[in-house]
């Protein structure tokens, strides 16, 4: 343990901060090389990364309930952003309030490690409860759409995201990494996948996958990212997770492929609403959903993958 964080997780955090330091130095050097180009968006992006990583690492290092409350707050911001861009009926203000109330409950189940409740609370109880509340209000015009939108929002932003927090309360199987190791592995692979798919696509991108949804997504980018993440995940997994190297390779495939779909699902939502960003909480990135889109898909899938193999 170093500063309350298990050894390997501590080094992983150090590595991430190292990458961020290098990126910051490059960002200072670039304008000197090309004084005419505008690097303000890159600068904003990196500054936002410092905030995200800084807050995340502080709460992970403090650990315990503080880290769980941190993820609950992320869910709150994400749900708020989602529910604000989709159409909602004025009559549903009450039930939207209930949707917010599901957050403290869901994360309480996480905090006390009640797996059975954690896994059914939103898919079963909230699924039944929201329409009940809506019926009592009595507005039938647009009922189907409203019920569907609301439950989907909570599934994406609360149920999915809470799986990241549950990784922290699983019994520790890798003493040198701890629960923090699992979270770092998932978050790092998910974000690094976004970056590598982007870079591979920029370098070799030719054949578009789904031009109607996301014109910049290419087979070359997707496959390049898949290969990169599979390899990196295989080599990192034995250090940060209970997974073997072989299982790590498969975790990489899972995270890379599902991360891609998380990204394009949220892109489709934005296309449908004719907006480019979901908010502007994170300058240079857009809203919180723009940053977490892949994570919405990777977190439950990665969770159940290791849960099946090791718990």
């Amino acid at each position, binding site marked *: 343990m170093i500063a309350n964080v298990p050894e390997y997780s501590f080094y992983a955090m150090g590595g991430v901060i190292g990458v961020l330091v290098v990126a910051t130095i490059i960002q200072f050097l670039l304008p000197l090389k090309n004084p005419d180009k505008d690097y303000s968006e890159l600068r904003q992006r990196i500054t936002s990364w410092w905030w995200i990583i800084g807050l995340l690492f502080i709460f992970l290092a403090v650990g315990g309930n503080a880290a769980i409350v941190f993820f609950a707050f992320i869910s*709150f*911001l994400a749900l*708020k*952003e989602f*529910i*604000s*861009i*989709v*159409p*909602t009926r*004025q009559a549903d*203000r*009450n039930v*939207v*309030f209930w949707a*917010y109330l599901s957050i403290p409950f869901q994360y309480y189940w996480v905090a006390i490690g009640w797996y059975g409740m954690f896994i059914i609370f939103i898919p079963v109880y909230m699924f039944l409860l929201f329409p009940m509340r809506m019926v009592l209000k009595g507005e039938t015009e647009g009922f189907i759409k409203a019920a569907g939108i609301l439950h989907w929002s909570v599934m994406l932003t609360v149920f999915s995201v809470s799986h990241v927090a549950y990784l922290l309360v699983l019994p520790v199987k890798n003493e040198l990494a701890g629960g923090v190791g699992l979270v770092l592995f998932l978050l790092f692979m998910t974000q690094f996948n976004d970056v590598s798919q982007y870079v591979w696509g920029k370098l070799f991108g030719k054949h578009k996958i789904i031009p109607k949804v996301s014109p910049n997504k290419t087979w070359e980018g997707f496959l390049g990212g898949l290969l990169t993440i599979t390899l990196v995940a295989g080599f990192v997994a034995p250090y940060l997770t209970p997974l073997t190297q072989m299982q790590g390779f498969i975790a990489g495939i899972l995270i890379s492929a599902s991360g891609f779909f998380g990204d394009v699902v949220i892109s489709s939502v934005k296309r449908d*609403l*004719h*907006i480019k*960003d*979901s*908010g*502007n*909480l994170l300058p240079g990135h857009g809203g919180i959903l723009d940053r977490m889109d892949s994570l919405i898909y990777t977190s439950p899938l990665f969770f159940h993958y290791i849960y099946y193999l090791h718990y």
Partner: protein
Amino acid sequence: MNRILKVTFVLLIVRPLALLLLGLNIRNRNKLPLKGPAIIAANHNSHLDTMVLFSLYPLSKVHKLRPIAAADYFLSNRFLAWFSLNVIGIIPISRTGASKKDDIFSDCHQALDQGDILILFPEGTRGEPERTSRLKKGIYYLVKDRNDVQIVPVVTHGLGRALPRGEALFVPFNCDVVIGDALTPVSSSSELINLLSTSYTNLLGNCLTYNKLD
């Protein structure tokens, strides 16, 4: 004294509310007038409109912000009147139309003369949530004899969902605040109203929370 009250209110209540419970998508923040005399002409859906505008200003400037508010509503009871006048710093105005135009505006002119930034809601009422009502002409009569005042249109969207008229339950929603270009000088009230409503329609198009399907 009142200035301290207002700064404290903005720092401890308004800003945390705007940042955490609401969350703002701000467009063209640089177009906000930081110096008076100026008028912010905003659409009106909620009491939160004023709070959101307050949250956009540096603390050193908030005492310059003076919302023009209906006397019959905001001075209706003793506590609300004290709060509106001393903490928010409203300029009360009569909606009954009994008094003469010059008298109605005398407090506004005085505030503009000392370089204040007035917040005015040309709809005159919060009305139906998230719908813009017909704009009133008062704003034209306020500025027609002055050439030192710039009128800056501002559109907010989403606040009528967070806290609409007649509801006590606050529900968190992200909201848009879009600031427009200062209006060009006009020669008639209908011209001003046209300019303003065109500007509102354009600004509304920049809102992330405004659904074109509605």
